[in-house]
């Protein structure tokens, strides 16, 4: 099982979900993630599991809601406009505290946008996305292997915290072929799903709900959710950093943009510019502490995003005025190049006398 195989991101994440024990996949076609439902339509029945092509994204997320309520591991995938439609269901999942995994292979927006790679759904993903006071855990992987590795973790976190976990990829990551290792690793110890709807056999009825009418009950419920989110913030942040200690310029980027940043920072170092990078792997919970710590010494922060600046707001919150935070954003399907990021870094660097 652990040999290296060459797979595109969309198919790789689908296989990783199957290995992670996904019982049911529900989805509706949309580019650039169509390889996922196509792959699942073949593989899930082979495994004796469930695949349904729904009539809409609203229905797909509602099917996820139903399967999840019975205690099954379940997921859906879509791309930006489809994810907008799923926000109703994601809000209900949050209210009812049901686990789910939602993959968003982002494309350009707003509206129908284009099918180019984009990171324009950062706000939507990291702020909950739908109505109500809630959060989702969000991964922003930057390679096909990382996409594969975050799937079992996504299912585990969803079950552990009874939350939706969003895997935020983009058109490049979904389509890109990379050699990967697919293997089943031991997962987390998880609490029993004693809340699940399995038929009230030998016990009182279970009710899955998000309506809290008696005065004060919804406030109590929201506070309970908040306490859970605080646990996630405390325990589940993932981030990677490189050459930050002596850096004058720290570039913050995630996903595909972080790959370009890595190359640009390496080139900057070759040019004797003291640059480093921080790469959030979880976008919520955000690595606020790591960035805040880096800002304790004066450096310039440059955020590189395939949007007109969304994560930059979280970087600013983390830096909290201790240092300047700048943005290099490419919206609408634009992908930053190594040279344009290197130029930005050069402009910001303090010229050193040789």
């Amino acid at each position, binding site marked *: 099982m652990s040999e290296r195989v060459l797979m595109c991101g969309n198919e790789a994440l689908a296989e990783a979900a199957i290995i992670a024990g996904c*019982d*049911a996949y*529900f989805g509706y076609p949309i580019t650039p993630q169509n390889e996922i439902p196509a792959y699942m339509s073949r593989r899930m029945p082979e495994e004796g599991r*469930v695949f*349904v092509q*729904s*009539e*809409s994204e*609203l*229905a*797909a997320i*509602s*099917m*996820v*809601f*139903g*399967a*999840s*309520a*019975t205690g*099954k591991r*379940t997921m859906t995938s879509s791309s930006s406009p489809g994810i907008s439609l799923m926000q*109703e*269901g994601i809000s*209900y999942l949050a209210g*009812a505290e049901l686990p789910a995994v939602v993959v968003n292979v982002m494309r350009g927006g707003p509206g129908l946008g284009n099918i180019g790679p984009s990171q324009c759904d950062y706000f939507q993903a990291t702020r909950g996305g739908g109505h109500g006071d809630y959060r989702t855990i969000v991964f922003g992987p930057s390679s096909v292997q990382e996409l594969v590795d975050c799937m079992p973790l996504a299912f585990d976190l969803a079950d552990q915290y009874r939350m939706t976990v969003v895997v935020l990829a983009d058109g490049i990551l979904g389509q890109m072929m990379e050699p990967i290792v697919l293997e089943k690793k031991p997962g987390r110890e998880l609490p029993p799903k004693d809340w699940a*709807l*399995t*038929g*009230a*056999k*030998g016990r009182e*009825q*279970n*009710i*899955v*709900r*998000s*309506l809290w009418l008696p005065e004060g009950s919804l406030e109590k419920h929201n506070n309970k959710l908040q306490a859970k989110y605080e646990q996630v913030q405390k325990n589940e942040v993932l981030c990677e950093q490189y050459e930050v200690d002596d850096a004058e310029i720290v570039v913050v980027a995630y996903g595909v943009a972080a790959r370009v940043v890595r190359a640009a920072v390496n080139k900057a170092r070759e040019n004797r510019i003291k640059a480093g990078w921080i790469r959030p792997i979880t976008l919520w919970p955000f690595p606020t502490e790591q960035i805040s710590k880096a800002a304790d010494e004066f450096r310039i922060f440059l955020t590189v995003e395939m949007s007109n600046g969304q994560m930059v707001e979280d970087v600013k919150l983390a830096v909290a005025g201790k240092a300047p935070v700048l943005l290099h954003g490419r919206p609408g399907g634009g992908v930053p190049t190594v040279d344009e990021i290197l130029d930005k870094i050069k402009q910001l660097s303090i010229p050193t006398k040789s």
Partner: protein
Amino acid sequence: METVFTRTPTFKDCPTHYCPGCGHGIAHRLIAETIDELDIRDRTIGIAPVGCAVLAYDYLDVDMIEVAHGRAPAVATGMKRTNPDKIIFSYQGDGDLAAIGTAEIIHAAHRGEQITVIFINNAVFGMTGGQMAPTTVLGQITATTPQGREAAGEGFPLQVSELLALLPGAIYVERCALSGAAGIRKTKKAIKHAFELQVGGAQGFSLVELLSPCPVYWRMTPAESMEWIEKEMTKVFPLGRLKG
């Protein structure tokens, strides 16, 4: 003394929040009786709608879920596909099923999902204050048709059950009325038949539509409501088996 009528165990022993003369209580009771008679309480999962019956789980003592407006058939699909041994039913009103949830009900029936839908048609949106529903009859005064519903601009009453009966995936569709002892007896038979089909593993979708009184928003007494169902509603929504 001989007990001739008693509470059925799956119908909880508590007062409901429904208005006097409302049909929901009767429909709940018939579902609870069916579940008990078929002895399926410990493998049944019910789906409550958005609408007056949102708290159905407070009255029906089975595992239940409350779902977004109109999405019950999709939720039921997710449940039944992953739990083919469970009995899944949704309980939906006309706003839920015939307005916002038309896509979900049509496609669940179209796919032949092995679920049972109890469709309460009372010709108005109850919970939000008696607005026009797709099933509101022509001339009926509601909160949003103060002059009475007109076909021009507001459309004719939507006969969802007739639409669904056309689909090969639907194996049983029947319309009954919650009016009078005979009507209620017939309704019970239909509900039980729909559940029995699912219990027996029949390959397809079943739905029972119930014409149900909403005296409050019909501005009638409970007795007048029953009469209105029989005299007026059944003209637009004829009773009987539409499929199966």
